[in-house]
């Protein structure tokens, strides 16, 4: 459902993302991990069409994002790391606007808006300006907007940041449900617990390179190649630290 083929981003001499290859099956939840500055957001921005790759290809549902951007984007729901929304619109107006961009039927937008606002605990704030929302509320509204057109692919950049525990729990349950209904989810997160709980497969990015990808079991096996770094623990945190060399760097 999602394919990145030799995806590359270069800024002058600096290579932010090195020839990344990822393939994600329909209904799969893929966790994207990496230390700060590893290139996760740059990769995601290329995958959603916000940034032009220096090389390589992104295919969404088989549509090339470079040559058939509209067809590819129609399948996609995206939530950025910083939910910058139109402050002077109300939550309902924002959903109506986004639904319109995806050519969702007006009545369907109205019905979906009520359902989604209810689901994300925003229904009593539906007619208020977004400028009055907290960060967590904006994050929830951005999620609702990403789901308004029933996307087949959901790409989320740090969706838990700024959310309260109830919101984070509800999101985890929602993602589980979406995945079960066949939605492909690409999730960038710093929360190793979330990745461990939700993701079928995990990719670890470091310095713009995918240093490992696979199921948690496969990653543990890979980490065991560095016993001096991973120690006896077999948690994702230990695997992550081993593969990104953080322990080594600290030492």
């Amino acid at each position: 459902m999602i394919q990145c083929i030799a995806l590359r981003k270069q800024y002058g001499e600096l290579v932010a993302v090195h020839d990344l290859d990822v393939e994600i099956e329909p209904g799969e939840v893929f966790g994207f991990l990496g230390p700060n500055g590893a290139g996760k957001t740059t990769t995601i921005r290329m995958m959603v069409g916000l940034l032009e790759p220096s090389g390589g290809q992104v295919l969404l549902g088989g549509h090339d994002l470079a040559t058939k951007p509209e067809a590819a984007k129609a399948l996609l729901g995206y939530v950025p790391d910083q939910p910058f929304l139109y402050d002077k619109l109300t939550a309902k107006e924002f959903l109506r606007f986004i639904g319109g961009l995806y050519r969702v039927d007006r009545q369907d937008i109205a019905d979906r808006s009520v359902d989604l606002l209810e689901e994300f605990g925003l229904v009593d704030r539906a007619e208020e300006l977004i400028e009055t929302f907290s960060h967590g509320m904006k994050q929830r509204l951005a999620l609702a907007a990403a789901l308004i057109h029933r996307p087949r692919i959901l790409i989320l950049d740090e969706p838990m940041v700024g959310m309260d525990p109830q919101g984070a729990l509800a999101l985890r349950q929602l993602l589980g449900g979406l995945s079960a209904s066949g939605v492909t989810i690409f999730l960038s997160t710093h929360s190793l617990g979330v990745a461990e709980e939700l993701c079928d497969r995990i990719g670890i990015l470091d310095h713009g390179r995918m240093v490992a990808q696979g199921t948690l079991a496969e990653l543990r096996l890979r980490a065991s190649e560095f016993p001096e770094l991973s120690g006896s623990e077999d948690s994702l945190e230990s695997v992550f630290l081993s593969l990104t060399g953080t322990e080594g760097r600290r030492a």
Partner: protein
Amino acid sequence: MSAPAAIPLGTLLAPRVLATRNAFRRRPLRAWALAFLTGAFWVGSFLLFAHTLRFFQTITALGPVLTQRLLVMLFVSFFAILVISNVVTALTTYYLSPDVRFLLAAPVTRRRIHVARFIETLGASSWMVLLFGFPVFLAYGTVFHAGPLYYGAVIATLIPFLIIPAALGVMLTTVLVLAFPARRMRDVLVVASVALVAVGYLALRLARPERLASPSELAGFAAFLAAFEAPASPYLPTTWAANVLLPFLGAKTAEPLFHFALLASTAAVLAIGCTAFVERVFLTAWSCAQEGREGPGRERRLGHWLGRIASPMPHTTALLFVKDATIFFRDASQWSQLLLLLALVVVYVYNFSALPIDDGSPLAGTLREIVAFANLGLAAFVTASVAVRFVFPAISLEGRSWWALRTAPIPLASIWWGKFWLGFLPLAVLGELLIVVTGRLLSVAPGLTAVFMATLLLVVAAIVSLGLAFGAAYPRVDTQNAAQIATGFGGLIYMVTCLGLITAVIALEAWPVSRIFWSRFASQPINGGETAAIAISFSAVTALTMTAWALGRRSALKSLKHLHV
């Protein structure tokens, strides 16, 4: 445990000072341009005031009275501007600026925060008055051959004179914030200040200050000033300030030290009172300022109304129209610009109605048509000035929400068309109205009016396309203030480009239009060769504007493709 040492004021003021310094360092060209413009303004103001004051000196009986009244009037004007400016600035520096929360969380006393913010407010509000006041006081000193004591007195007077409105402004803002939600307050103040500028511009323009350059008009002004009862109450700081300076100019016998003491003691009392008041209520007022929830009813009505207007438009254009128009009407910093636009249009039409070219002779008729042709250039220039305020910022105003549009399954070209129509339709209506209304005022032949209207339509299309191109090439997503976006470097070169285009169009149409004039005035029929030449000229105008339109569109789409927010 002993209390921590007070944070130096320099530390608290450093962010603003360093940001200003960095802005000038990063854009040295802009700094030089500003310095040049300031210098030119100073020289111009100095010459105008010196000229006026010298004229007053020639009126033996009334001279000193006029000098005195003009100075009081200036102080009254400065004081009114300062109070309003301080209220507007204090709302931001004290209550809306995001860095206040860091200061409140830091081990800094409220008094310290207040003093730092007071200085910031004072500086931000007063520099314009200092800029304008400098050549005025210099002109007074030069014309009246004042000694160094006068210049010392000017500096000594200005310090308390600036502190008084700052203290009043800060206290007034604090009371208002305690009473009303800050966001609503900000809107009211933004609109009030833009309206003030619009009214000031109207008043200045309709008063025609250029008349003061002619002796007869200056005499009229002197008569007006002599009859004008300037508020010179002995209880006003403006009177005290004038009474400190006038004895040094030999224009009045007064007690400068006594009046200075009044001024300084009032400033001191107000500054201390302001500190005590703000220190006491600052946290409460700041908390109030963070609340700003809107009632739900108005939002729903606006969206419904705009949706009906947009219903005949294509899908994406309608969506963008409703979104942009909703944001426009909810953002006071955007819609208040309409007040300036209104003032501009009124002055424009007034200028044409006041033209002294209607004596009924045949030559006057041709002169009217020549003026009407010049009017085409002016109308295009007005449209460009409006476009720099409304079209150029259109891309920047998408700001950090650009991701929502860019990740949607709509081509960039659709976004461009949406923005183009939103800019083109109102500007075309405005431009055509200017041509038609001024055409009627000048009694221009309908055929020529039609030619001017067609030309302007082409020019407006090019201007809007270029506005989007420059707006996309020089985006400023760091601010949501449309007026601020327009004042950047991109806005400047956009205006220069528009001027170039308008000049080229006028140059291309000058000969054919003059030929048509002469054919009517001197009854010289246009021959076949000339008809062809006229057709070529108009075709060249069409080609030029359409090329500018196409290049603008291509450039905008290219910039939008690479726009990373």
